[in-house]
């Protein structure tokens, strides 16, 4: 027992020493390079433009704090849409893998195996290349559905009473997804869906056969059997791993910086390059993602308690 405390004191001392050496070196280096420290830079003028803003208005004359807030809104927007799309697609692929139809099941298995084994960054570049090289210019845009246009300038949707129309070299009106946003969202959703599909499959396979047979002998219709018997039990197993997939999706949205979508990491990166305040920038990135991670965890834990067995609550 005594030896244990000795070890721990030594560990604390070593950690403290490393921290102190790093801190004093950093103070010295910052002084030599004439870099200010602290978060004072946040109120200064950012001076750079941001290509697209999800909810907040922004101009180059605004402060760094405003620019970072725009980046955060962009991150949350793409992550939220990504979670919804990935869940829907993952559910569909997971159910398809369990389909009695051999062709559909093999197709779903091939989807999962392919997308899980290629780095997300490669997939993002691939989707971006498809949009910017594979799609035609706005004048010859593809129209898969009436009013929806696919072109190398992005994807355009009609809104109620406001349809996109070709004016000059691009579309105006309606809702638009930039090529960067469309590539990032597609990449995040399709990649995460492959992992979610496996979770859905494992969850459903874990429900014992007898449960379904019992539901059928009670005379439940197929839809009710799935809704009232299979899904509640499958969810119990699926929620914890689903949580970590949502966390991964949120963290992976930071790859936006590589294809030029102005998410939080990308704006923080620009800020670091302009002000030289790397420590504050990295600290902000980490704080933001830790907060997002903790919020998703808290929400999913609450949800998990709701779907857990009553006897097992607490």
């Amino acid at each position, binding site marked *: 027992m005594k030896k244990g405390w000795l070890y721990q004191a030594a560990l604390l001392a070593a950690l403290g020493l490393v921290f102190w050496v790093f801190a004093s070196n950093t103070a010295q280096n910052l002084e*030599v390079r004439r870099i200010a420290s602290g978060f004072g830079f946040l109120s200064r003028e950012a001076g750079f433009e941001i290509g697209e803003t999800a909810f907040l208005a922004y101009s180059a004359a605004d402060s760094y704090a405003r620019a970072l807030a725009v980046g955060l809104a962009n991150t949350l927007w793409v992550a939220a849409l990504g979670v919804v799309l990935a869940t829907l697609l993952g559910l569909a692929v997971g159910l398809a893998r369990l389909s009695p139809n051999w062709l559909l099941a093999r197709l779903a298995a091939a989807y999962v195996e392919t997308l899980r084994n290629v780095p997300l960054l490669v997939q993002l570049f691939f989707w971006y290349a498809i949009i910017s090289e594979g799609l035609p210019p706005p004048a010859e845009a593809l129209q898969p559905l009436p009013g929806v246009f696919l072109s190398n300038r992005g994807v355009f949707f009609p809104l109620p009473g406001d349809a996109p129309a070709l004016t000059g070299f691009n579309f105006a009106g309606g809702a638009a997804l930039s090529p960067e946003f469309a590539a990032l969202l597609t990449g995040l959703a399709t990649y995460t869906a492959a992992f979610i599909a496996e979770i859905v499959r494992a969850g459903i396979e874990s429900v014992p056969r007898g449960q379904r047979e019992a539901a059928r002998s009670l005379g439940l219709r197929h839809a009710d059997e799935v809704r009232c018997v299979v899904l509640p039990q499958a969810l119990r197993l699926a929620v914890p791993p689903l949580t970590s997939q949502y966390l991964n999706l949120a963290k992976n949205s*930071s790859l936006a910086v590589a294809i030029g979508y102005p998410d939080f990491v990308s704006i923080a990166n620009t800020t670091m390059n302009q002000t030289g305040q790397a420590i504050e920038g*990295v600290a902000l990135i980490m704080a933001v993602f830790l907060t997002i991670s903790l919020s998703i965890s808290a929400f999913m834990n609450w949800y998990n308690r709701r779907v857990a067995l009553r006897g097992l609550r607490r």
Partner: protein
Amino acid sequence: MSGCLAWARRSLFSGWLSTLTTLALLWLAWRWLPPLVDWAIASAVWRAEGPSACRGAQGACWAFIAEKHRFILFGTYPFEQHWRPAAASLLLIVLWLCSSLRRFWNGGLAAAWVAGLALIGALMWGGVAGLPYVENERWGGLTLTLLLATFGIAFALPLSIVLALGRRSTLPVLRLACTGYIELVRGVPLISVLFMASVMLPLFLPAGLTIDKLLRAQLALVLFAAAYLAEVVRGGLQAIPRGQHEAADALGFAYWRKMGLVILPQALRLSIPPLVNTFIGLFKDTSLVLIIGLFDFLSTVKVSLQDPAWSGFGLEAYLFASLVYFAFCHAMSSYSRRLEHESARAVVSGAAAPYNRGS
């Protein structure tokens, strides 16, 4: 033939929904497969003297890959010395293949790795045996990706074992420190750890002391992967029954002998399939070093596209990159699946699982 028909009836046309699905999928294949095959194979340009042959073609321009393959594989390594990274990459792959066979799981394998990595270092850097010296700023391409992944695993695994043991320790300060580290790293994206290594680390060091970019990126990958591996190892540790701990205690083993001789050998064997899955993640994650400006495989592919003469072949380039990453990751994932099946079979048949065989 009747067996075939029965199979088709059962698995393709078992009901109206299944029949409809099959017909819809066949229609989609009939509609989309021929143009795709035509683009990728029939009308593709495989060899060309210059980009002009590709410009007029209807199909894919694989000649782009053929033209740039040296740069994509080896980066900016001196051209006439390319046999060295090629030999180093082959050696790495052979070492990995040997490590996957249970037959070689003994002390000799560790010795082979040490000798192999030393030889790879000698090949890559040179400066010995008449090989000209090549500084590591010039390493790149697929070789660099393989090196980052290999050294990442080699250093992250021991660190993760220490972290996992620390998280399960009875000493509160140690447990808190390890838990805090693991949860912190798992809560942030890899890119922030890479930024930390590339822009913050130089500030931490005393003036005059610098660590080069490659080493900093490697350090970030190791620190990041260790946190994830530690959770896998912890899972293995938790699966070891209490009796094993008590038996080791009864033999009078102290902590390190107990862990090293009794607990860890069993826990690590149990964790091999999930460890391989985490390695796949690390292998894919090495592609992120592109963002801090290292010339890994994905980065050399991307830079090849910036050649104005050959620009606009992004689809071909990234399909090729996907194929290469897929080959490595798929090999690893089918290996981990096979191990899982083997151990499941051993448990079901009641025989001692191969992982529990003494050693």
